[in-house]
């Protein structure tokens, strides 16, 4: 019985923590707010990809190795890792921004498909887990920069599609708002 009390006590503590988390003010734009900014999607870090690629080119490392400038090579490697980590962090910020937009679309929809939403949560959890692993692999020096470039290209494509969807939704929402405006209420009911 004492064990039950301890276990339930721990469960209650977890529940109260969950409650506190649920009551925290949500980050970013509130659901249903049409004041979202498509620019925030466009302002993705993928636009810095050419500079990052140049900075992380393998040829430089090989050249320094051949030239025997080991001290400089080490310094360059360290700097590159720092840049790669910052870039990975920025990609995560892009991912979160896009996800936030996806949530806004869901919030405005009158009906959600449970499967889609559950799948998105699962994908988000997986992304975060893999992000940590990618971060770790960069720390230990195993990250592939070419793959990071592929990841960036991918983010870019995703952003373009989502932007188009948001634009379409914005136009429809604006049209609906116009329809219910005081100047034109000639028997139109949206609800």
């Amino acid at each position: 019985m004492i064990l039950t009390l301890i276990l339930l006590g721990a469960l209650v503590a977890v529940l109260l923590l969950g409650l506190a988390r649920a009551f925290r003010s949500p980050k970013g734009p509130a659901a249903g707010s049409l004041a979202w900014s498509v620019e925030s999607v466009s302002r993705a870090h993928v636009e810095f990809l050419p500079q990052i690629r140049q900075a992380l080119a393998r040829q430089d490392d090989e050249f320094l190795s051949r030239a025997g400038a080991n001290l400089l090579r080490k310094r360059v490697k360290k700097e590159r890792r720092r840049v790669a980590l910052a870039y990975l962090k920025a990609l995560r910020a892009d991912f979160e921004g896009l996800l936030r937009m996806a949530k806004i679309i869901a919030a405005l929809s009158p009906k959600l498909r449970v499967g889609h939403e559950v799948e998105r949560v699962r994908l988000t959890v997986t992304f975060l887990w893999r992000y940590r692993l990618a971060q770790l692999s960069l720390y230990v020096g195993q990250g592939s920069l070419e793959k990071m470039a592929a990841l960036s290209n991918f983010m870019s494509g995703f952003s373009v599609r989502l932007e188009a969807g948001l634009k379409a939704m914005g136009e429809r929402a604006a049209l609906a708002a116009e329809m219910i405006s005081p100047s034109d209420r000639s028997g139109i009911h949206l609800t």
Partner: protein
Amino acid sequence: MSGLPALVRWLWGISTAAQTVLCVVLLARGNFRKIPIFTAYVAANLCQAILIFMVYKGIAFRPQSAIPLAWSSQACIQLLRAAATTEALRQILKPFQGIWGLGWRTLAVAFGVIFLVAVFDSGRNISWAVLLMDRGFHLAFAIALVACLLLVHYYSVPIPSAYKALLGGFCFYSCAVVLANTLGGVLFLRRDANFQALWQLVTMCPFIAVLLVWAVALRKPLPDALPGAQVQDPKGVYWEISPQINERLRLLNEQLNRLWKPEVSRH
């Protein structure tokens, strides 16, 4: 009634007074129109307290019927509590029909599954059945409520502070009852003389605190539905985009998976 310690009797009095105050606040501020089931829940609690007082005093019914009467009236209260919680969540999610659809399903499934487990568990020992079922109900209720609120938070739906107080109060009280019933069980098994008084104390103190928080939160009229969320997506952009987003996210995950894995070969 006289068998109970003075402190417990005092707490009963304070609890009844707090419930009366809350009823008055709900009626005076007009909030009973927005949350009628919650108002019914508070009124039912008050009626239950009066009924049990009458039973203990011998004014109505026989004293032997006190326990069955208390527990059966408690079942009605529990149902009203669940309905009042659903009502509050419905008020918050009124402008978000899609999330509400997802929310009530989460609430129902989480509650149903956990409560069924609790019912099966309590069935093994008849003498403990009522206590364990009550604990199971509160546990299932708290888990389902937190799950639903986390879902609301996931979609960045802002919750007005008055509703936070209502839902937080329900959750906090349920957590307190879970611990109180377990502690009560421990004391009963140890044949502690103060078992009943302690159990009453641990159950009633959080309830009084919750009643006071509710009374403070409801002293102002409850806010209306969120502005800016009224315009819904009429043509189903969600249905077009959602699968694409998920597909992109899935592929993105694959890319990220390849990123952290060490390279096998290099051309």
